Each structure stands twice: as structure tokens, then as C-alpha cells.
């Protein structure tokens, strides 16, 4: 199998005032090229800590066990310098709140350009071209002109598109999306999900998609990892997890989501 990312027996331990706590316990999964793996769980389940471990962005003092291999190379226990090289170039990440990830004092073009030049070097002119192309790719109209605008001049959905452009400008092999559509309206969410799926098909990027929303996972992921209190409770193809969940927690989670397709309650008051 064409494996891009292989996480094996990952355990993350954070020091707290009440002693060390395992926030991720013995989690294993793989991501192939062209594949989207969804990690789903409620708040405090360890899904974000798993993604931060992959990116080498865990809080200071965190301890890790196990292994995370990207394209065969181990990512755990690297130096900060090495991880900076890997981030952006081989693995990129987008977050829930694009406004807090963008610097309000710089134009978006400059911020994407900085990312590109840090990894690729080259002339500003070449970088500018790459920036405009990246903005065009994520569907920003008039990218040449819009590159000169500041983050506040964009809507929430457009800002998330800009974050995606920044994440993909160096053509990384892996994209981690941590709740990228949670803060967005449902119609905008649908556009961003479609954009991510289209870009993935064009660029063959492997994707880890983290969310608390099972319906979003169900519409985008090929495989699903369900987490609860740091543990991996279920891992399988989307079809298997959604049609025949093995674990009681997954079943409970699936039963608790309200569905628009549900029949209305029988005792509905007809007015």
C-alpha cells in the first residue's frame, strides 16, 4: 500500500499540577496518498493533540512515545530546526480560526510569500507568481489584486481559503485540517469541503481531517478514527464505522446526532 503517514502506538503525556496525564494513549493509524482520514471525537478526546504531535507543535514539556513516520522518515524527537523545515514543506496544517492564524498587519499576499520563500527561496518575483497562482487555485477572485489586501478585508470563508492557499503553496504531501469548517456557516462550510476535496484530487495530498462533527466526517473521509478520552475506540473505513460500528461509544455518538433526514416525531402538533 502507498502509505504516506504511519502513526504507531502514539502516546502523548502532558505534565500537569496533578502529575503526568496521558492525553493520547496508544493511537495507531495510517494515511495513504490521495486519502482523507477523519479523526472524530468530543472535546478533550485527544484529537487535536494527535495532530499537534504529527506537526511537532506539542506544548513544551510534552512527552511522546511510539512512532510517527512521514514518507518513511521518523517525525518524533526531531529538533525544532528540522521540524520547521518539514512543516509547510512536507506537512501543513490549517486551523479552526483563520483570523487568529493570520497577521492583521500584513497583506495576505506577503504572508503566503513569506511561507513560500522560507522553504523555496528564489526571487520575490517568482514567489509572487506562486502566491497569485495559489490564491487562484483556492477560488479567490482577482487574485493579483486581492493578494494586496489585509485579512480583515476578507470574509470568514475567504480567510479559510487563504489559509488553505498558504498551507498548499509549497505542495506538501500531507495536510492536517483541524476543525477547518467549524466556525463557518453551513453554506460556506459546504464550499470549503468541496474545495478541499477538489484540491486533493488535483494535488494527491494525503489529508487528516479533524472534527467533532460526524456528518462532516461522513461526507469527506475515506477512513475514520474515533477517539474518546485519549483512546482510539474505533478505526475503519467510513462505511464500516458508520454502518456497523463495533464500539458502544461510536454507536452512542451516532445515535446522538440530530439528522435533517429524520422522520418528525409522531406526536408532532399539527398546526
Amino acid at each position, binding site marked *: 500500500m502507498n502509505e504516506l503517514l504511519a502513526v504507531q502506538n502514539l502516546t502523548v503525556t502532558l505534565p500537569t499540577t496533578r502529575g503526568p496525564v496521558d492525553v493520547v494513549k496508544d493511537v495507531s493509524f495510517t494515511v495513504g496518498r490521495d486519502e482523507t482520514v477523519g479523526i472524530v471525537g468530543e472535546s478533550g478526546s485527544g484529537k487535536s493533540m494527535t495532530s499537534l504531535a504529527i506537526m511537532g507543535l506539542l506544548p513544551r514539556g510534552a512527552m511522546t512515545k511510539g512512532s510517527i513516520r512521514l514518507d518513511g522518515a521518523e517525525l518524533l524527537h526531531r529538533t525544532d530546526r528540522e521540524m520547521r523545515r518539514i512543516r509547510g514543506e512536507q506537512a501543513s496544517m490549517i486551523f479552526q480560526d483563520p483570523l487568529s492564524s493570520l497577521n492583521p498587519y500584513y497583506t495576505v499576499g506577503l504572508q503566503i510569500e513569506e511561507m513560500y520563500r522560507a522553504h523555496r527561496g528564489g526571487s520575490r518575483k517568482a514567489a509572487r507568481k506562486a502566491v497569485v497562482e495559489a490564491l487562484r487555485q483556492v477560488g479567490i477572485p482577482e487574485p493579483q489584486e486581492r493578494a494586496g489586501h489585509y485579512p480583515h478585508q476578507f470574509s470568514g470563508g475567504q480567510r479559510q481559503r487563504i489559509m488553505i492557499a498558504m498551507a498548499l503553496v509549497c505542495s506538501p504531501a500531507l495536510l492536517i485540517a483541524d476543525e477547518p469548517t467549524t466556525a463557518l456557516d*453551513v453554506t460556506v462550510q459546504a464550499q470549503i469541503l468541496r474545495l478541499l476535496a477538489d484540491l486533493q484530487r488535483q494535488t494527491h495530498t494525503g489529508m487528516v481531517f479533524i472534527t*467533532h462533527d460526524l*456528518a462532516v466526517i461522513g*461526507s469527506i473521509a475515506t477512513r475514520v478514527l474515533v477517539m474518546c478520552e485519549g483512546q482510539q475506540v474505533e478505526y475503519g473505513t467510513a462505511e464500516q464505522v458508520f454502518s456497523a*460500528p463495533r464500539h458502544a461509544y461510536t454507536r452512542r455518538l451516532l445515535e446522538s446526532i440530530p439528522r435533517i433526514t429524520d422522520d418528525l*416525531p409522531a406526536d408532532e*402538533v399539527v*398546526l
Partner: protein
Amino acid sequence: MSDVLLSARGLTKRFTTRGPYGRRKEFTAVDGVSFDVRPGETLAVVGESGSGKSTSARIVAKLMDPSAGTLEFEGEDVTRATGARLARYRADVQVVFQDPFSSLNPRHTVERILMAPLDYQGIAPTGGRRAHTKELMERVGLNPDHAQRYPAQFSGGQAQRIGIARALAVNPKLVICDEAVSALDVSVQAQVIDLLLRLQRESGFSYLFIAHDLAVVRRMAQRVAVMSNGKIVEQGPCRQVFDAPGDPYTRTLLAAIPRINPEWDRRRRAAAG
């Protein structure tokens, strides 16, 4: 009693903002909105951010005056109500907010929080404060032994139950839920929805249920009003609006909802029996 509890007619709210160079700009957040809430029913108002749904709720809660339009409660015009009449309205209409922690005073005990609406009304609870607090906490599924605790000692779902209990303290006729379950994890959200439905069955009050999540609305409400750009674009029974939407915006909104493959769902349910 008439068959309409609350009637909003042509509610409009304009805000004046300062644009660049101090230029005044007028912005219409709510634009001629009309709806009725009947006794014992749930009317949901849905829309995306900036649609004006929360502003409408704030006008109904009398936290804000409308620029135009009227608000009638039990046949009485309360649009410009003040003093004793406003206090009476506030006993009949209560609000549950989205973020339980910012809507509960962190320095007050649960008992003090739950008794605040009664204190405002100048009502002494029958049977005493302790007994009334205990009863309210039991109704919303909280342990009454925790009456002397502070909000920070509760989880998000529990804190929202405190907010709901506070709304019920004065036996309201209408409870406005402004995104009351949006910030909760899905399993906790399901429990709070069940609680809201049970309380309504027990007490027979009405909900004005503000939400952006249409699936939640489908579980909660009998009727729904869809808002976009300050206007109600469609209004009617849930069954009609969801199954045969008449407005293009409603259709877009419904189509945008992410769905799990219904075939997978069917197989899971069949296996679960």
C-alpha cells in the same frame, strides 16, 4: 386567552456604524420581520451568521428596542413597555443563552443564580429559597446537593442546565433559546435537547428557538422561520419547510448540510434493531 402568545409585526432594527473617515453608515440588521408564537409551541428561527436571527431574539427579550414595528404579548402592546409592565413581561419571557459560563455570574452560587429572577420580581418562593432551588435543580437533572457550588465547578452541559433552571424559576410562558445547544458536544447536546422537550411537555410553555443548525431545529420545533439578510424568506410548519422548501435560499441551506450516507445509517439502525 387568545391563540397567539407573542406577535411580532414588522420588527426592524437599524444600526448606525461609523465607516472610514467617520462617515455614518446605516445598516439594517432586521428588516420588517413578522411572526407569531402560539401557546405551547416551538417556533424556530434559523439562519446563518448576520441573518438577524439573534437581533430578533434580543428585541423579543426586550434587551433592545426595535427601530420600527410592534411586539404584542397576550394581546397587549409591549413594544415600549417600561416599569412595572416591563417587569411583568420579564417574568413571562425568559432567555437561555449560548454560552452558559458568560451568562452565569461566576461569583454567585447556584442557589443565588436560580433565585435572582425571583429577587428581581420581588417574589418570595413558596416553601423557601432552599426548597425552590432544590426543586428547580431536580427538574433539570442536577444534583440538588450542589446548590452552594459555583458555575466553574460544573461542566458545560451542567452549566447550561443551570441556565435553563434559572429561566424556569419564575414559571415563564415563553422561553427564548438563543443558540442554547450550539456550544455543546453532540452527546451532551442530545441530552439538553431531550431536557428542553421534556420541560415543555411538563409545563406547557412556548419556545422561541434561535439556531443555525437545521437538524437540531427539526427535533425541537413545530414551525420554522428561515432568515437571510434581516428578512424572513420562508415560514411554515417544519414538515413543509424542510420537505418542500419554497424559497431558493432555504433550498441552498438544506442542500449544504453535510450528511452521512443514508444507506450506512439504515444498515446501522437495522443491525441495532
